[in-house]
């Protein structure tokens, strides 16, 4: 071993960090024992022609259970989560994840169900899905929900395919090829539109951050399939022209898609359906706290208007005479995932809605918006605030004052890590230079917010007085700033045994 360094109570090699599982492997070790085979064993050759058999077994690591426990415990200690500390990652809604929901999803009556059991043996699961469908439709202000999509982007794809099916039904599929997307939109919006076979047209934002309505009027026409929008938008601002925007798009024959990544701002306060949206997705891992799991599993159900119900992906849950079944809508766009969506995630979202009730959901949004405004108010003297107006659940600062003295948004983000806080989303939305997008969520206390304010102010001061501290940051983390360019230039995407 090189030089032992201690971080989080772990002795690790200075250069290599926590050894990889593969590096810990010793021939003959095993971490799980099966019951002995209790049926008569036949020779492999009798069962499978030799040419189909593996010449050798895949070289998986050989480690014991205690080693596996220590390995992943060590890895976990090198990782930040909402449970560890503040996580104001804009547009990601990193709120507290209630543990009771984990217990509930793990109940054998939910976690030990096979997707092809007869419906009569899964009435509880189907009832839960049926109810969640209606709850989400109510929150969206729309008619019916599909629970199939596995994530927000997957919901976007399904929603756009529904738009396509709608225009096909109108005999206008060939003409209506364009999806309008604001320049402030999440990257998944244009990527999903292309996957659905559409052409993307970017709408500029006006000076106040909303959709440029005049530009929109010029851009819509018989070629318009629809508009994708999030409201509040990625600047954290509510687009007050939404009714006019909806009217313009609908008059042109297009549909409106609501990107629900920012729905934590609006529950019980305003509904996308009432704003004029036809299709809405929710990120259950964000708004309904199912948690994020280090990058999934999430779920991205979409709710649609009455007239679009017939196009929903199948299966959907239907109730007839107190019995729940899975059915196929008349003009369904097809199947988008195997089985019935990320059911285990749906269970947690259902529980989250039930524990809160309507007033509780409203209070979530109220406090999410209050916390964001509180932070914005206290940070706008130290960081440039390009859109100086009341925000919703998040707001976007610009690091351009700091950039002027040679400190980038990235440097600010990296310095925050030294204070055991996750950085905000940076360099997004693209329309703000050196963007720093802050979303505190409702589950953070005033003390945490005050602490963040204090740290951000200290960093702003440091940018002036000791910029090197920031440019070299982070200093307190298990590894220093990592060389991303090197990783991309010569990709090392897996471990390989040295003997090869």
């Amino acid at each position, binding site marked *: 071993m090189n030089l032992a360094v201690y971080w989080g109570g772990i002795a690790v090699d200075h250069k290599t*960090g926590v050894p990889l599982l593969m590096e810990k492997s010793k021939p003959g070790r095993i971490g799980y024992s*099966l019951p002995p085979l209790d049926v008569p064993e036949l020779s492999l050759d009798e069962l499978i022609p030799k040419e189909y058999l*593996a010449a050798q077994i895949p070289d998986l690591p050989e480690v014991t259970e205690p080693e*596996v426990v220590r390995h992943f415990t060590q890895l976990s200690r090198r990782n930040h989560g909402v449970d560890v500390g503040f996580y104001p990652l804009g547009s990601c809604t990193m709120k507290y994840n209630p543990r009771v929901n984990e217990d509930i999803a793990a109940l054998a009556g939910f976690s030990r169900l096979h*997707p092809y059991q007869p419906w*009569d043996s899964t009435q509880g699961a189907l009832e839960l899905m049926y109810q969640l469908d209606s709850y989400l439709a109510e929150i969206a202000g729309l008619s019916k929900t599909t629970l199939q999509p596995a994530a927000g982007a997957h919901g976007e794809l399904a929603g756009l395919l529904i738009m396509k099916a709608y225009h096909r039904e109108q005999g206008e599929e060939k003409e209506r090829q364009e999806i309008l997307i604001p320049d402030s939109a999440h990257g998944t919006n244009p990527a999903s539109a292309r996957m659905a076979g559409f052409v993307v047209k970017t709408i500029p934002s006006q000076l106040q951050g909303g959709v440029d309505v005049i530009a929109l009027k010029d851009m819509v026409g018989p070629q318009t399939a629809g508009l994708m929008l999030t409201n509040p938008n990625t600047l954290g601002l509510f687009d007050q022209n939404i009714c006019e925007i909806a009217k313009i798009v609908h008059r042109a024959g297009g549909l409106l898609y609501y990107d629900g990544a920012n729905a934590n701002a609006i529950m019980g306060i305003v509904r996308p359906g009432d704003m004029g949206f036809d299709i809405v997705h929710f990120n259950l891992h964000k708004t309904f706290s199912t948690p994020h799991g280090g990058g999934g599993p999430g779920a991205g159900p979409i709710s649609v208007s009455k007239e679009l119900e017939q196009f929903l992906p199948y299966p959907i849950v239907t109730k007839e005479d107190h019995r729940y079944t899975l059915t196929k809508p008349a003009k369904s766009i097809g199947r988008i995932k195997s089985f019935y969506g990320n059911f285990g995630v749906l269970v947690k979202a259902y529980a989250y809605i039930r524990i809160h009730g309507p007033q509780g959901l409203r209070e979530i949004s109220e406090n999410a918006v209050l916390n964001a405004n509180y932070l914005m108010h206290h940070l706008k003297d130290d960081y440039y605030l390009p859109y100086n107006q009341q925000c919703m659940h998040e707001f976007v600062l610009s690091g351009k004052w700091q950039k002027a003295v040679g400190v980038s948004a990235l440097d600010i983000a990296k310095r925050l890590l030294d204070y055991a806080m996750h950085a905000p989303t940076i360099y997004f939305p693209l329309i703000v230079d050196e963007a720093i997008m802050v979303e505190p969520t409702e589950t953070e206390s*005033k003390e945490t917010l005050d602490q963040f304010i204090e740290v951000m102010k200290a960093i702003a001061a440091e940018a002036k007085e000791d910029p090197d501290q920031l440019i070299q940051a982070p200093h307190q983390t298990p590894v220093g700033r990592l060389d991303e360019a090197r990783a991309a230039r010569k990709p090392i995407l897996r471990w390989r045994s040295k003997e090869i």
Partner: protein
Amino acid sequence: MSYIPNTQQEQMQMLKACGLSEIDDLFSQIPTTLKLKQPLNLPGPLAEASLIKHMNILASKNINLDTATSFLGAGAYDHLVPSVIKHLVSRGEFLTAYTPYQAEISQGVLQSIFEFQTLIAELTGMEAANASMYDGATALAEAALLACNATRRRKVGLPANLHPEWIEVARTYLENQDIEPVIIPYQSDSGQIDIATMDASLAKELSCLVVQQPNFFGCIEDATGICSWIKNGDGLLVAAVNPISLGILKRPGDYGADIVVGDGGSLGNPLSYGGPTVGFFATSGTSLIRRMPGRIVGETIDGESKRGYVLTMQTREQHIRREKATSNICTNQALNALVATMYLSLLGKQGLRAVANQCLQKTAYLQQALLRAGYQRRFTGPCFNEFTISGDVDWAKVNHQMLDKGFLAGLPLQQFDKDLSDSLLLAVTEARTKEEIDEFSGLLGGYCSGS
């Protein structure tokens, strides 16, 4: 129940600090006409204990696999899961993190993904794997898109013995991008893809041919022969594999597959009514690796040459490339991939082999018993963990009667193909004991008119 820490008094203080006097002032930018005038029409709040009670009631309306003995498979298998996994995976540092955008405080998740990529690459015999896809079906659809992109061809060969739901998902993804799925028939007696009767000129039109190994009916395909057929026309081979089978069967990399996908539900994840599972995606060669969808983690160093891991090759991705991205995928199935990593390391080389062998042996044991009872093998192709029997039986009715006796009997194939109305698809894993198999085959055998 509420998880909001700030008291009403603190909320008032904070409002005041912002120059506002009441909560409603926070929403002044929303046009009044749009604001909800009444509360959402949802059931009232519950205390934690009441919620648990309610959820227990809902859960008890389901028959679960702890109370019924399952011989269902068809893409979701009841495998044994080491207890330790649930303890490790529920650590808050993993559970409550998101995509590791800030690498220096996300080394835990990043390293675990790097390990996942390594294990999947090793398992499939490919050079590289990504961080995960939603499930096997969507991974397959994206593999087909990648093949079209790489070969500049607009047709995809999908065998009729591929899982019907995977075919349907692929259709949804492909047809909306004007890519034509070409359904490749299987031999009605063996259940396997019939290369001998396939036109060689078709191989020149296909971007790729998909082979599911073992296929939907449980039969093992001649993947080597299939591979040479598609390669003769310069198309790619996409293998959709059951990862457990790779403890025994040849790795896709060893028979020449270009892209390998599959569902990692079997690798330690709960069945959970079919999801969340994890899709895996592996490929070889710089050109295909550079076009892979999804997150990819790479190794690098910091300023002091310390080893670390970062998200890499991000110029393929939606947040950089927007409409030019290789896929729209963002959130994937990281926690399920972490479970798979734990599972594969706990079982290790020998354990995976043992699980695969037990599935194989127990499947053969049940199959023999049912044949003795008078059922027929519907397909003659060799099997791994799943097989199809036929008999003059009303399977839906039998299934209900078997359920009353505590067994989830198998999947009637009539719902997928009317020509298979006499057929039942059964799976056996290492989780089934000889005693369970004997009781089950005795009962099911009783319904066979040939007996």
